[in-house]
């Protein structure tokens, strides 16, 4: 056996270990969601058991958790769109225009993410209470947009900077306004980067718990906030927690596959330019 083949085996072993460590909890979660309460609380955890479908209808229909899925989708979807709608043009300006204080302002967007999220939780709560938006989807959407915006600005500036300035100028010579050149030519060229950024924004918003919990504990609550509701005085409903968690994970699995493809395309974006 050659040295490189030996190394390859070691690499495979490490990879396999990483996969086992990463996947086992999810596998266990998936199994738990099909277990009865007795099987879950059994002192001998079992891989083989008589599966039950009862947990899913119990929580999503019995406890009316289905709207929470809709809330999660609305919050993640709207905050992603809003972040892109505001952040992409801002990133474009940062990539193209020279103005005094540009780098400082650009860095300011990053500093908004430096403080621990909890530190602005109280001001946010007071603000949304005062504006009457507390416990609505809007409050959570705006809060999530506030932290996703910095991500969009930071990621998209690089993608826009990779597009030669002459492309914008050619579009202007071809009859577009500056805005028209941005919308008609630059954005389509930045589409892979836009997609990668969108998916990351969606995942961050989808998984967010703290602001969602503080700003929309009742009507507008998403799935993440719904899970603690299954910790009852009579004990934790592990099967239902697992069922909600599985459903909450599925979109992320789908998006993770998308982000993989688009991130690779996004990162090699420089090769696309003419």
């Amino acid at each position: 056996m050659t040295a490189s083949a030996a190394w390859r085996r070691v690499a495979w072993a490490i990879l396999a270990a990483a996969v086992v460590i990463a996947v086992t909890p999810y596998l266990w979660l998936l199994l738990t969601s099909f277990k009865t309460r007795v099987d879950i609380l059994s002192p001998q955890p079992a891989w083989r058991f008589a599966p039950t479908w009862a947990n899913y209808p119990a929580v999503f229909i019995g406890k009316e958790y289905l709207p929470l899925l809709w809330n999660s989708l609305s919050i993640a979807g709207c905050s992603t769109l809003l972040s892109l709608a505001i952040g992409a043009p801002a990133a474009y300006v940062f990539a193209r225009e020279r103005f005094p204080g540009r780098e400082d302002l650009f860095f300011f967007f990053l500093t908004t993410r430096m403080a621990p999220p909890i530190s602005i939780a109280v001001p946010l709560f007071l603000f949304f209470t005062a504006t009457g938006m507390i416990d609505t989807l809007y409050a959570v959407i705006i809060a999530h947009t506030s932290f996703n915006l910095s991500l969009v600005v930071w990621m998209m500036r690089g993608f826009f900077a990779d597009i030669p300035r002459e492309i914008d100028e050619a579009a202007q010579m071809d009859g577009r306004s500056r805005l028209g050149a941005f919308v008609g030519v630059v954005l389509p060229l930045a589409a892979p980067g836009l997609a990668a950024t969108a998916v990351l924004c969606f995942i961050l918003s989808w998984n967010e718990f703290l602001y969602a919990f503080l700003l929309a504990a009742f009507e507008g609550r998403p799935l993440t906030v719904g899970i603690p509701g299954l910790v009852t005085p009579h004990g934790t409903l592990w099967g239902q927690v697992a069922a909600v968690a599985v459903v909450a994970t599925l979109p992320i699995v789908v998006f993770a596959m998308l982000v993989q493809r688009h991130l690779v395309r996004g990162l090699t974006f420089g090769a696309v330019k003419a």
Partner: protein
Amino acid sequence: MGVALRGIRRTFPDGTVALHGLDLAFEQGEFIVLLGPSGSGKTTACRMLAGLDVPSAGSIEIDGRDVTALPPRLRGMGMVFQNYALYAHKSVFENIAYPLRVRKFAADSIRSKVQAIAALLRIEPYLHRRPAELSGGQAQRVAVARALVWEPAICLMDEPLSNLDALLRLQLRTELKRLHRDLSKTFVFVTHDQEEAMTLGTRIAVLRDGRLEQFEAPRNIYRKPASRFVAEFIGRPAMNTFDGEVRDGRFHAPGWAVPVGDRPAGPAVLGIRPEQIEIVSAATDDAFPLVLDVCEPVEPDILWFLRAGDRSLIVRGSGDDITAESGDTVHVRFPRVALHWFDPVTGARLP
């Protein structure tokens, strides 16, 4: 009627001045070349015309109309960029069709116009391709087609040939000249290559440090350079220039002297083109000896580098001329009509 830049000044935010009050006017239908070394302001001047850059002072007129404040799309100009600037996500056909689509041409008119310009530039076989699948020469042809397809009155070209290899550059140069003749549009062409400028332009504007040095037909630029700078920029190799002094009918440079006839005495700069210097077989009263340093055959010609004091005098002669070896002494003669004189301080041409 025509295009006029009046007192165009451009100061960048960092304080550098790209153009110091440029005045330039030309007629429709001309092939204008903006020529200069890097940093001369030629590209800035072109971008001012396009509307991609805004002058700090001065105005731009097209056919008597002030367009200084107009955005690029309202100026009726097409533009070709050095790096092609094709839309990577569109096919070649859609790249060329884009100015027509933006301007809301009818679909069948778009098809026929794109086909026509593609035929003219011989890129029909590539219409379905993506820009990434084109060679540099093809890509630049597409860019030219895109700039001209909607028949703008003026076509700007910012160093369009500089990214191409030498052979393609020559081919595309000839095609541009033919295109200009056939379309009878105004072309404004930016380059740092004096040969491109000489071959293409009906008039050449030579720029230096944001100022216009000379704006004339190539023939005059070559034969009557307005300044020492132009003289040293045009020609291959460039004009020989020497600082020295005229005394008793002779021009004295450090280490050598040449009879120049009746000239006012005093310091002066003498210029002579390498191809106009004569090599003579023996000493005559208007020839003088110099030692041959290096020979460079550029068939069918030959370049002789002669030691003239601490400088080199370059002579371009026929390769069939006298054979001489390094270290030999040769006799050179400066024909009086070939002499150029420049002011040693300002560099301006003297009579």
